[in-house]
């Protein structure tokens, strides 16, 4: 299977099964597109009058050579299908330090901080038990991860401070490396917090949506007042401080800002170099949910964004846009691509009370509760997630992007189709476009 597309005059061919990427001239582009459905003789007959017989034969020789090397029209890497491992390792936890928030974001999947339950903070006892659970269930894995999440995790600062020290201690004891990430709206990111982040090497995800009007409309304080000014001030101060290491500026776009490339541009021009701006996940009953009719505009926005980012790269001011990152030589191995996001398996979310869920988006759904950090896992839901991979999803079989999106987000599939095996269609359309943009940028910026 191949995917052939043109972006601003550059012809790109992705060989889906090998993941090889080729840049081709126009004659080769046309011939490759028809290669699988025609004989060499037919292609010569059709294209010799256009490009000349020698050129067509040259191209056919090049195609055959690449085919023999497994770089074009390669076969399925797992022709016998895929059997997921059953080892039951958990290597990453999303700790909900606070089911409470100092903002009332309108699109919040966490029910504006409380995940549909009582507002509450994770106790030290639960947090430490979660770390112990991670050390135990990660088995032989050396790298483990903890994301401090919420609501707003900085509402529970003492527990955060303790858990970082405790996690490091337990990891050292177990011969593991622990990586911490903090996802925050930045309002409580004061000097003390900044220093703590720097001294403890926390990666940080900072939430801001882009232009002031866009941000304020969706991310108000409980009073209704917009939070842009204070959030931007905090984030700028932190990102430009000596304490900021690995970070992403994380925004959400909705139907209210379909021109989201302007928001990415706004964030980039504010001096941020690592940006992730993503489509909202919302039910069709909300005014801000993305609709099918928005797709053409959104695809065009991704193209605009690509041109902007390429321009920045050429000016020597590159910006790393999370979903356009692609590493063709050292990217994930095939087994990683098949396990996807690992929700419900290697990755779990922990509520303030210590309950375990497949990921942060499932929290509060009792039918997906997978146990507790004190009692351990009841494994029932895990088998559904283990089997929710691209070889079991009908929509993925013939999709050229399957080894990059790995079948998409489980929570979206369930929310929109009620079925883990049926991907969220709008998400698929956007993911495919992002991959085209990413490949084009890669081709243009590779030395």
């Amino acid at each position, binding site marked *: 299977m191949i995917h052939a597309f043109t972006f601003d005059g550059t012809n790109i061919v992705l060989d889906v099964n090998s*993941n090889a990427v080729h840049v081709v001239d126009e004659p080769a582009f046309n011939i490759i597109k028809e290669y699988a459905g025609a004989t060499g003789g037919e292609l010569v007959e059709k294209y010799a009058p256009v490009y000349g017989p020698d050129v067509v034969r040259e191209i056919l020789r*090049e195609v055959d050579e690449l085919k023999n090397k497994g*770089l074009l029209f390669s076969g399925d890497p797992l022709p016998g299908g895929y059997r997921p491992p059953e080892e039951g390792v958990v290597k990453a936890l999303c700790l909900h330090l606070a089911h409470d928030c100092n903002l009332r974001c309108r699109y919040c999947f966490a029910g504006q901080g409380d995940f549909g339950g009582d507002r509450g903070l994770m106790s030290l006892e639960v947090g430490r038990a979660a770390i112990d659970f991670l050390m135990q269930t990660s088995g032989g894995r050396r*790298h483990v991860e903890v994301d401090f999440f919420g609501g707003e995790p900085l509402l529970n600062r003492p527990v955060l401070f303790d858990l970082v020290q405790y996690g490091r201690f337990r990891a050292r004891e177990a011969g593991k490396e622990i990586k911490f*990430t903090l996802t925050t709206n930045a309002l409580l990111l004061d000097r003390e917090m900044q220093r703590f982040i720097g001294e403890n090497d926390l990666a940080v995800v900072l939430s801001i949506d882009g232009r002031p009007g866009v941000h304020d409309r969706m991310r108000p304080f409980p009073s209704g007042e917009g939070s842009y000014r204070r959030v931007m001030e905090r984030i700028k101060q932190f990102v430009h401080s000596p304490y900021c290491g690995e970070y*992403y500026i994380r925004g959400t776009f909705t139907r209210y800002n379909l021109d989201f490339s302007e928001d990415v541009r706004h964030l980039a021009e504010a001096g941020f170099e690592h940006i992730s701006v993503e489509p909202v996940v919302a039910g069709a009953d909300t005014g801000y949910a993305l609709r099918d009719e928005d797709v053409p505009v959104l695809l065009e926005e991704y193209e605009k964004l690509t041109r902007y980012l390429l321009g920045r790269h050429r000016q020597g001011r590159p910006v790393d846009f999370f979903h356009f990152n692609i590493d063709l*030589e050292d990217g994930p191995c095939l087994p990683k691509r098949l396990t996807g996001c690992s*929700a419900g398996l290697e990755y779990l979310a922990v509520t303030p009370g210590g309950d375990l869920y497949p990921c942060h988006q499932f929290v509060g759904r009792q039918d997906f509760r997978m146990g507790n950090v004190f009692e351990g896992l009841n494994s029932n839901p895990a088998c559904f997630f283990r089997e929710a991979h691209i070889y079991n999803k009908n929509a993925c079989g013939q999709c050229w992007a399957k080894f990059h999106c790995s079948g998409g*987000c489980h929570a979206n599939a369930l929310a929109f189709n009620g079925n883990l095996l049926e991907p969220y269609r709008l998400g698929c359309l956007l993911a495919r476009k992002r991959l085209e943009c990413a490949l084009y940028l890669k081709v243009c910026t590779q030395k």
Partner: protein
Amino acid sequence: MSKHIKTINSRTLQSTVRNGGCGECRTSCQSACKTSCTVGNQACASGKKNN
């Protein structure tokens, strides 16, 4: 030397099957997105590069 087709990368997915799957890489949803799984943009954490 190809005149019409320029290949950008030589590493194939097939070549990663044998030594891949160590599971030491980062969890894809954890690092930045939290709403939209993308695995292809992650980096391999193995020094062996799996091929």
